[in-house]
């Protein structure tokens, strides 16, 4: 019993939290689907069959997951120093535009040079936006949440101007840029699919960030900054430097997402190239407990939901908005760990002695959490 108490005192493990958040989200989704008059079982079956039931489905799941690995990672990286980067969407757009320009207008390079150059151009502009945000924060005290949101707007409009004005091909009726050179296109891994080698780049980025944070002295400083800014400052760590490094990386990863979308999926910049990947990245990061390696899995999970939704849309009458709703609810549960703790504690409560249980009930009623109880 005491062990159990300790466990609770330590709070939920992040894995357990993510697992239950997902479970409850699916449950909530099922209820919503049922209340709307559709069959939850049929719906979930259609999602699973559609996303995992065939080779094409699995490939679609992976290609849908790729941008989410990037944007989830982008959010998580900034979050390592407790900075919130809502700007992945804008950084992605600018990265995509940079990739489209470098990919289309630089000619005569061998693939081996052109591909990395195009990828890095996206990362660079994304990273520079990150630097700008930190500059505004450190120099003028502007909240990074506000500036990143505002920059999203500015960048979206700017890229929209470029793609409907100066960079638009003559014969095009919609806002887009020229198709990039063959030498800048990422290989598609499977015929008849959008899955490109971008997925390896995404996974490599996640692994590198993981190693950076966990295994290097710089990573240690980043971690300390995230845990306690004052303590880090006292220990002689330059907070500004930490902000700059993490936010540059965060923006660069989002920018990389943009350039890899251009190089692997669309072959050019088109308006609406991001299906809100930047914002979905926040959910992905939260579900992956901001751990770079877990994010690969949480992104894959969202990729499965997304590819399932596409099939769902064809085979059933269920509106695919439910899938969006489920993703949103996941975040709500992840963001409310105490809610899940409270629900889960019900199960363990039953075995406890009555008076203790009563004591706890009182605590709960007063809005306290089990955690505090364990410290008595």
């Amino acid at each position, binding site marked *: 019993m005491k062990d159990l108490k300790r466990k609770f005192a330590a709070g939920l493990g992040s894995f357990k939290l993510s697992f239950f958040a997902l479970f409850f989200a699916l449950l909530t989704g099922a209820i919503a689907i049922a209340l709307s008059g559709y069959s939850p079982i049929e719906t979930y079956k259609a999602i699973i069959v559609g996303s995992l039931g065939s080779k094409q489905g699995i490939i679609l799941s992976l290609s849908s997951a790729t941008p989410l690995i990037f944007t989830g990672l982008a959010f998580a990286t900034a979050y390592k120093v407790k900075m919130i980067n809502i700007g992945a969407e804008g950084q992605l757009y600018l990265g995509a535009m940079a990739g489209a320009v470098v990919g289309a207008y630089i000619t005569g390079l061998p693939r081996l040079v052109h591909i990395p150059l195009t990828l890095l151009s996206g990362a660079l502009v994304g990273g520079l936006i990150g630097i700008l945000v930190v500059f505004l924060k450190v120099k003028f005290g502007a909240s990074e949440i506000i500036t990143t949101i505002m920059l999203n707007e500015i960048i979206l409009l700017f890229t929209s101007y470029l793609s409907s004005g100066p960079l638009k091909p003559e014969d095009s009726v919609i806002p887009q840029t020229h198709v990039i050179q063959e030498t800048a296109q990422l290989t598609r891994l499977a015929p008849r699919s959008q899955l490109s080698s971008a997925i390896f780049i995404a996974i490599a980025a996640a692994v590198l960030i993981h190693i950076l944070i966990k295994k290097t002295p710089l990573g240690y400083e980043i971690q300390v900054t995230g845990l306690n800014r004052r303590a880090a400052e006292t220990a002689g760590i330059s907070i500004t430097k930490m902000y700059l490094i993490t936010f540059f990386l965060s923006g660069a990863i989002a920018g990389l997402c943009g350039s890899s979308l251009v190089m692997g999926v669309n072959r050019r910049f088109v308006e609406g190239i991001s299906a809100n990947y930047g914002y979905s990245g926040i959910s992905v990061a939260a579900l992956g407990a901001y751990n770079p390696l877990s994010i690969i899995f949480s992104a894959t999970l969202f990729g499965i939901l997304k590819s399932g*939704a596409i099939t769902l849309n064809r085979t059933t009458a269920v509106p695919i908005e439910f899938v969006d709703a489920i993703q949103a609810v996941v975040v709500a549960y992840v963001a409310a760990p105490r809610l899940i703790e409270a629900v889960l504690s019900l199960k363990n409560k039953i075995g406890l002695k009555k008076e203790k249980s009563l004591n706890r009930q009182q605590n709960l009623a007063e809005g306290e959490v089990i955690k505090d109880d364990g410290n008595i």
Partner: protein
Amino acid sequence: MKKNFKYFVLTILICTLFLTACSGGDSPTDSEGAIDNEIKIAMVLGEGGLGDLGFNDEAFEGLLKAAEDFGISYDYVEPKSVNDFEPQLRMFAESGEYDLVIAVGATQVDAVKLVASEFPDQRFSIIDVAVEGYDNIHSSSARNPEQHFLSGVLSGLVTLDDRLPYTNEENILAFAISIDAPIPREAAAGFMAGAKYVNPDVEIIYNFIGGYRDPEKAKEIALTAFDRGADIITHNAGASGLGVIEAARERGKYVIGTSRQSADVDYSLAVSVKKTEQMVYKEVESIVKGTWQAGSSVYGIADDVCDYDISGLKVEIPEDILEIVEDIKQEIIDGKLELPYKIEDVDEWAARNQYKK
């Protein structure tokens, strides 16, 4: 308290299962029509999907009508973003179940071309843009100037007329253009040509809203135009048009939109229609009749795809004005008029072409 909560969770679970059981019988697919009928059509709608009271809804309406008339079955999807077009088109093509896959909207061009080259035996139709040079793609599009031309004629006549309550002394019209792109510009050129065809001295103020979902800015542009003396404003800006309508209501002026559903019965003089439903219907019809061919069709007023529409609107337009509009419509049907496609060419065109009764 915790016990209660547990029961609450249990109750929800039971309810879920119960509802699941109840709703299990619901038809799980959109397919309708007889099973013995072989023909099956797939539709990939444009971004935004159904419920836009405009383009997508009209395309779907055409599909529904064709399904009813020909007894075909259909499936459709609503892409969430431009990245979804390709997998969704491919999904339909891959299944091999569909006689025709209809892609709605110009934004799908790249995806349709790519998937069509992957599946040479699958027939595709794309609506609202011209595509040529593929053995398995037929494209249907409208002559953009013709969509707005007759509304232009109507406006050119009405602004001179003092029998209508909301007109003023000035000979000024306005066009709130959606975005600065070739198609919207062609639409505006058609309107201007129409107005100047019957009213050569008319001044037409135009401005670009810059987006299809920006009613606030559209309203500002409309108000400015009214303040400069315009008494009729038209737009081709989808949901932004709601702002234009609001401005017309506020100032008591006339508006001409492009969507019948969002027209205001008291202030809408007419609607410039491009019958997307007709284009979709024709595609399905050609499949049913076996006349479907790869290539490109461009439709206009003569094909009953472009028109002006005053049905259901309360503004009373004098008969003699409508007679002239109908007369000019007939001129177009008879092929007597070739419309300009560029705003810059309108004045020169109007100098050569004037309506003579």
